[in-house]
């Protein structure tokens, strides 16, 4: 059976693929590199004639190339952190939902407690104590991203646990990890994909928030967050330095958000 993919899903996915591949390919085609200093054009506003379509920053670096580099970093960290949080969330959710009882109570209490925390403190403390490396940033972001996933997967697993094929697998002596991997995980894949899509924008926002505060991606590497931090400092003289990376961030977050909502409506028309 072929299922028609909704138009909104196709449009958003296409936009994302285009932006992502542009952020990888276009910097190679540009005359400038992310770290090239163009001393003849320091802090110029966007112009074709100068060869800087988005203008340059205080050091004469081309903002078009730097913004694309930032998009690449933000997308990569957002996707990888989502992947890590999906792994943690699915594991915790499936184990809690399948085993039930004391394990379930303990794990879900933990999720409740973590939910009620001002998590930003822990992300900040984590980035500070793990050192400011990209890996530390990734882990710190993923550490808060898995909570909703765990709840969703647990609820799904509880429903699946009662189904005949699980009982049958148990009856013929399949081990618990094998049941989880072969029978539970594939059956929760739909909602997992939907919620993962909805997790990506929030983790991208978290990454750029940390980079904005100077805790995330460090100069000279560019991320949308640290580009905006520089832009906010220069906004009176050079507003494009804030507006260009800002619009890219908002655009990306918006498109992924719409994609997630559309996927959810498609998979589960009742949910809103």
């Amino acid at each position, binding site marked *: 059976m072929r299922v028609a993919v909704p138009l909104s899903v196709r449009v958003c996915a296409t936009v994302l693929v285009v932006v992502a591949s542009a952020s990888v390919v276009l910097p190679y085609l540009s005359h400038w590199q992310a770290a090239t200093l163009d001393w003849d054009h320091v802090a110029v506003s966007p112009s074709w004639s100068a060869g800087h379509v988005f203008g340059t920053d205080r050091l004469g670096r081309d903002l078009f190339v730097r913004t694309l580099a930032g998009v690449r970093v933000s997308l990569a960290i957002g996707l990888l952190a989502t992947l890590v949080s999906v792994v943690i969330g699915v594991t915790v959710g499936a184990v809690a939902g399948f085993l039930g009882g004391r394990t379930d109570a303990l794990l879900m209490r933990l999720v409740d407690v973590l939910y009620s925390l*001002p998590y930003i*403190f822990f992300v900040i403390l984590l980035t500070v104590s793990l050192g400011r490396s990209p890996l530390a940033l990734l882990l710190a972001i993923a550490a808060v991203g898995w909570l909703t996933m765990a709840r969703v997967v647990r609820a799904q697993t509880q429903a699946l646990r009662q189904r005949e094929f699980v009982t049958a697998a148990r009856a013929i002596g399949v081990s618990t990890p094998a049941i989880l991997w072969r029978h539970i995980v594939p059956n929760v894949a739909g909602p997992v994909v939907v919620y993962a899509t909805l997790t990506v924008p929030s983790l991208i926002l978290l990454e750029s928030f940390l980079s904005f*505060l100077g805790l995330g991606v460090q100069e000279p590497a560019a991320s949308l967050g640290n580009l*905006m931090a520089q832009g906010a400092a220069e906004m009176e003289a050079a507003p494009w330095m*804030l507006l260009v990376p*800002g619009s890219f961030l908002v655009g990306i977050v918006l498109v992924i958000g719409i994609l997630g909502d559309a996927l959810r409506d498609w998979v589960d028309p009742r949910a809103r």
Partner: protein
Amino acid sequence: MNPTLRRLLWNIPVLLLIVTLAFALVRLAPGGPFDQEQALAPDVKANLDRAYGLDLPLSQQYGRYLWRLVHGDFGPSMRLRDFTVNDLLRVGLPVSLSLGVWSLLLALGVGIPIGVLAAYHRGHGLERVLMPLMSLGVAIPSYVTAPTLALVFGIYLHWLPVAGWEAGAARDLVLPVVALSLPTLATIARLTRASALDVLEMSFLRTARAKGLSPLHTLFWHLLPPTLVPVLAYLGPAAAGILTGSLVVETVFGLPGMGRYLVQGALNRDYTLVLGQVVVYASLILVINAIVDVLQGFLDPRLRLDARDSGRL
């Protein structure tokens, strides 16, 4: 035991866990509060460590910190000499709290009506205008809105001050409050709409209409209470979100609140300052969550704490 009381008491071990975790994390971080460009002379450093009790074993320091904490003493700031954390909180917290409370009120006061309006006008023009705007609001973080608002209304239009704080003058608060509340406002509007749409399909609403109750009576007595249950549940995360945003908004608008201390404190390894803030804000959010749990019982009797605990639903 009274379930409400038990719900409140449950916060004590949670808070203890938070303090312990934060203490461990902040002490795990390499470096210390007295690191400078130029290394201190060893005997100076030893004296400093002794003065702040950093020469004791970690477990003893932890015990001492907890002991002071239960007496309401957050200790001296290690980086901002001559200030105790209590001093800093006394000055900064009122600023941050007024910013946060106004933002939350704005988000609720505008977000809920927008959500209800969009639900009433499902599929019509009004919803088609409002909800994309709300999607946009969710996507624009406060660190984009804050500088942009300052740029437009402060620098180009000269309507409002770009930054600053004159003893809580209202005009200083407008831009920060708007910037801080927008993402929360948009989320609350979306939540309210989704929840109101569910409630609108329920039979009791049809009955209310059928027996000719006035639209306003139906709205306030029959639609809003069940609609607000998930919105209320979001208050805890909303408060956490506003707190997160305030770190940026206070910096952008130069407000003398607590927000700027957190990042600086963490980077400077100002142990007591960071821990003090974690304790204050975590307690605040725990209290909000507890209040929300109790309030939900008023809106939906099925969610009363005693009903939940005894398993009767």
